[in-house]
């Protein structure tokens, strides 16, 4: 079962991945956007780290929903670009989806991610093929749900979700952007990966900690 402490481990891992890949995300955004995705996400996730407190901190009294809501507020207030409201809305909807639960099972996790996807799609008015984070996120969500439904354990299902997200991110490369600043480039947005789709891959990669994987990586 996944409790608040485990959700915190996920967020710490996500902050770490964003921090490590900050320059890569910003470089991608420099090509087709406003060159701030890595910096913005890193600023947001560092602020999230701040509210998570120490790893040894026994102060895990808050419910998962409360934690997710706090994360949403931090992202919305600290990430200056469109990613703030987009990820922020995803986390707000995740918080609603987990409701009053203290512990989340595999199904709850799948539903949590699915609710986040709906929030993100609604906020960005984006769908598959628009060359956005949705291209990675939607594929990850459906891979996760169908793998769990087929009876695979969480670890394998998350691995499926991660490869689906990566595939979705790869598929943004030949697309013409239809949303955001990149859409002003039209044809010229072809041939470049959408930076948001990559930060979404890391969100799912970090989620391996739900299956007790990849928690400590100080490489």
């Amino acid at each position, binding site marked *: 079962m996944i409790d608040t402490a485990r959700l915190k481990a996920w967020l710490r891992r996500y902050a770490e991945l964003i921090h490590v890949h900050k320059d890569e995300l910003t470089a991608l955004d420099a090509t087709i956007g406003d060159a701030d995705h890595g910096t913005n996400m890193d600023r947001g996730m560092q602020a999230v780290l701040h509210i998570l407190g120490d790893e040894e901190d026994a102060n895990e009294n808050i419910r998962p929903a409360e934690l997710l809501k706090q994360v949403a507020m931090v992202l*919305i*207030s600290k990430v*200056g*670009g469109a990613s703030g*409201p987009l990820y*922020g809305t995803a986390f707000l909807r995740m918080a609603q989806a987990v409701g009053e639960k203290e512990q989340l099972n595999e199904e709850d996790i799948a539903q949590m991610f699915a609710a986040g996807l709906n929030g993100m799609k609604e906020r960005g008015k984006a769908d598959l093929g628009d060359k956005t984070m949705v291209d990675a996120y939607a594929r990850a969500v459906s891979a996760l749900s169908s793998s769990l439904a087929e009876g695979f354990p969480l670890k394998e299902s998350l691995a499926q979700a991660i490869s689906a997200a990566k595939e979705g991110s790869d598929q943004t490369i030949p697309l013409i952007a239809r949303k955001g600043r990149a859409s002003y480039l039209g044809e010229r947005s072809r041939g470049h990966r959408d930076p948001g789709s990559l930060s979404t891959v890391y969100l799912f990669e970090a989620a391996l900690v739900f299956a007790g994987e990849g928690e400590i990586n100080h490489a």
Partner: protein
Amino acid sequence: MLEQGMDTPFLRPVGLVLVSHSQAIARGTRELAEQMAGGMVPIRDAGGTLEGAIGTDTMRVIAVIQDVLKLAEVAIVLMDLGSAYLSTETALEMLDKSFRSRVRLSTAPFVEGAIIAAVTASTGASVEEVLKEADAARFLPKQ
């Protein structure tokens, strides 16, 4: 009521909120619109990030909407680019329901829309009229 100006306890029918990625654009557009409205319309700007960099700040959008709603029945929000729209919609989701129902979003061109909305609102026009006039700003000839 119109003659009583903004220091009356009466709410004006319409106030404006200007959301831009740039603090300078938001501020400058507000100054321009205020001059045209002759002080008859509450207008607030929310431009740039908290640090004054290029971007939008949802929390500031929330704060200025609440500010305008202290002075006007309805706040019309104008936004410059896509993610200003995203931030504003997020702000709406986070606002209290009683406030949310008093906010309208305009997709009018930012500068021209703000000026026309301010001028129209200063005549005491209704929200619908202000929205319609602001929207027509996209067809406004430059000369």
